[in-house]
C-alpha cells in the first residue's frame, strides 16, 4: 500500500453527532474514508460504532453534522436513494428476505438499480441479466449449492454471506459491513475474511467495516479508527494502532475509567 499517494476521499463525515436524550452516542465524529481501502472502525460495546454507521446511511437521523459521499451531501437522503449512489449496507442483525430463496434474495438485489422495476406484464425470468448477475454473486460468496433454499433455512454463517452477496449484487462502490462475522462460529470467520479480501481486490471496492474481532481487523484493514464513548480515540494503520498505548489501555479497560473521570 502506498501511503505517499494522496488518495481520493470517497466518503466522509463532518462533525457527525447523535444524541439520544442526554446520552451523546456519537460525539462530533469526523472521518475520511479513502477510495479502494479497507477501513475498520473498532471499539468496545457501546462505543457508538453501529450508531455512527446508521448515521452514515441515514438509518438514524443525525442531531448535527454532515455525511459527504464523493463530494455530495447525503446526510438526510431517503433510504432508497443511498443504494443508487453506489453504497451497499449490511446490518449487524442479518437483514434478508427470510422466506424467499437465496437466488431470489440476490436477484432482487440485482434488479433494484435496473430500469425494469415497473414492467408489470413481463415475467421476471424475461430479464435474464438480473438472474445471471445473481448466479455470479452467489458463486462468488459460495452459496451455489444452497441457491434454491429459502434463506431462513440457511445456517447463520451462510445468511451473513448471503447478505454480503445482496449488497454486492448491484456492484456498489463502497460496502458498509456492520460486523459481518457477528454470531459466526469461529471456524467460519477465515472464510468471511477471505471473501471480504476478494471483494476488495477483484472489485476495486472500498470497504468500511465495523468489527469486534481484533484478529480480523488487524489482518485485513488498511486503516483503523478506534471509537470510544462516541468519540474517535485514535486513527492509523494497523501497525500504528497496535503500537498505540492509549488504545492498548482502552482495550484493557483502564482508559474507560479515566475518560469518564474527566
Amino acid at each position, binding site marked *: 500500500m502506498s501511503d505517499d499517494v494522496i488518495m481520493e476521499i470517497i466518503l466522509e463525515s463532518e462533525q457527525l453527532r447523535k444524541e439520544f436524550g442526554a446520552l451523546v452516542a456519537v460525539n462530533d465524529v469526523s472521518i475520511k474514508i479513502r477510495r479502494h481501502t479497507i477501513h475498520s472502525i473498532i471499539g468496545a460495546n457501546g462505543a457508538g460504532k453501529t450508531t455512527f454507521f446508521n448515521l452514515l*446511511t441515514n438509518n438514524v437521523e443525525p442531531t448535527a453534522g454532515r455525511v459527504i459521499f464523493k463530494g455530495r451531501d447525503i446526510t438526510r437522503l*431517503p*433510504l*432508497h*436513494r*443511498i*443504494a*443508487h449512489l453506489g453504497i451497499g*449496507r449490511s446490518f449487524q442483525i442479518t*437483514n*434478508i*428476505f*427470510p*422466506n*424467499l430463496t437465496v437466488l*431470489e434474495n440476490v*436477484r*432482487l*438485489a440485482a*434488479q*433494484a*438499480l*435496473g430500469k*425494469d*422495476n*415497473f*414492467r*408489470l*406484464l*413481463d*415475467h*421476471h*425470468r424475461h*430479464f435474464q441479466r*438480473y438472474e445471471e448477475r445473481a448466479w455470479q454473486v452467489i458463486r462468488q460468496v459460495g452459496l451455489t449449492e444452497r441457491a434454491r433454499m429459502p434463506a431462513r433455512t440457511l445456517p447463520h454463517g451462510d445468511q451473513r454471506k448471503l447478505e454480503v452477496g*445482496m449488497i454486492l449484487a*448491484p456492484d456498489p462502490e463502497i460496502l458498509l459491513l456492520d460486523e459481518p462475522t457477528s454470531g459466526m462460529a469461529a471456524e467460519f470467520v477465515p472464510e468471511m475474511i477471505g471473501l471480504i479480501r476478494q471483494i476488495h481486490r477483484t472489485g476495486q471496492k472500498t470497504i468500511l467495516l465495523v468489527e469486534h474481532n481484533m484478529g480480523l481487523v488487524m489482518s485485513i484493514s488498511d486503516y483503523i479508527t478506534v471509537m470510544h464513548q462516541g468519540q474517535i480515540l485514535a486513527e492509523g494503520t494497523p501497525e500504528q494502532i497496535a503500537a498505540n498505548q492509549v488504545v492498548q489501555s482502552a482495550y484493557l479497560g483502564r482508559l474507560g475509567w479515566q475518560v469518564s473521570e474527566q
Partner: protein
Amino acid sequence: MKILRDHSTFLAVVVFLIAFPFLMALLDGQSIGAMLAGQSGNSKFYQGLLIEIFILGIFALSYDLLFGITGLLSFGHAMFFAVGAYTAGLALKSLKLPLPQTLGLVILAGIAQALLFSIVLPRVKGITFALVTLGFASVFHIVIMSHELNDLAGGDVGLQNIPKPDYLDPAAQRLTFYFVALAFTILVYLFYRRFVDSPTGRVCIAIRENEHRAQMLGYNTFYFKLVALIVSGITAALGGALHALYQPIVSPVTASLAYTVNALLIILIGGVGTLSGALVGAAVFRLLQFFLDKFFGESSSFILGVVYVALVLFLPYGIIGTWRAHRLEWQAAWRARFARVATMLNRKT
C-alpha cells in the same frame, strides 16, 4: 403440450366451469334448448350462485394482492367494492350512461380511491394503516346510507332499480352473464398471476417480507405499494360494478367492515398470498354459507363459525397454502402406498 401439463388443474377447472351450465341442465333433466333459452331450473339457479362466487372471488383476489402479496393490511377494502358498485349503479341509473362509459368511470373511481388511500401510505404502517383505511371506509359507509343522499343512493336500503343492458340482464340473459363473469374472473386471475411473477410483483413480495431491506436495496417502496393499491383498487371496483349489474339492490353493507372481513376470511380459507386460494376460498365460503343455510336454517352461522375455526386450526396456511406446502410428501406417500399394493398383487400372481 408442456403448457397443458403445467396448467392442467387450471385448465380442468376452466373446462368444468364452461361445461357447468350444460351439465346442470342434464342432471336436472332439462333440455339444453330450454336452458339456453333461460328457463328457470337448477342450472339457472346454480349459474347465479357461481356468478356470486366469481364476484366474491374477484374481490378476494384484489384483497390477496394487497394483503397476501404486498403485506398491506387494509380494513377499508370493502370501500373499493362499494365505490365500484355505487359508481356503476349511479352511472347507469342517474347519468344514464352506456355500459362501456360506466366501466370507465368505475375504473377512474377505483384509481381515485387508491390515490386517497396512498396519501397515508408513507406515514403509517401495519395495523395503523388498517385502522386509517377502516376510517375512510366507515366515513363512506355512513355517507352513502345517510338521509341526505336518500334520493340518490337509497339510504340504508340501498341503490335499487338500476337499469341493466338488455344483453346482460341477469334474469333474462343469465347464461351470458355467467360466461361474462367467468371470463372476467379468469382474465383477472391470469393478470394477477403475471403481475406477481413480474419484476414489480417480486418487489411487492419483498416488501411484504422485509420492507426495510427492500428500501436499502434501492427500491422506493412507496411506488410499489401504490401500484399494488391501484391494481387492487381497480379490480375490486370492477368486481363491485359486476355486483351492481347482477344484484337487484346495491346495499350499503358492501362498504362495511363485515364485507372486508369476508375477503379476509376467504383468503384465510384459501391460503393467504396464493391467488388461486382467493378463488377456491370464495367458492368454499359461498357454498358453505348456501348449503348450511339451506339445511340448518338459523343455526347455520354457528356451524359456519365452527367450520372456520376448524379450517384455521387444521389448515393454518389455507387450502391452497397447505396443499403447496405438503404436496410433495403427500404425493410421495400415495405413491409408496400404490407401490406397496402393487408388490402385494405381484406376489400373489
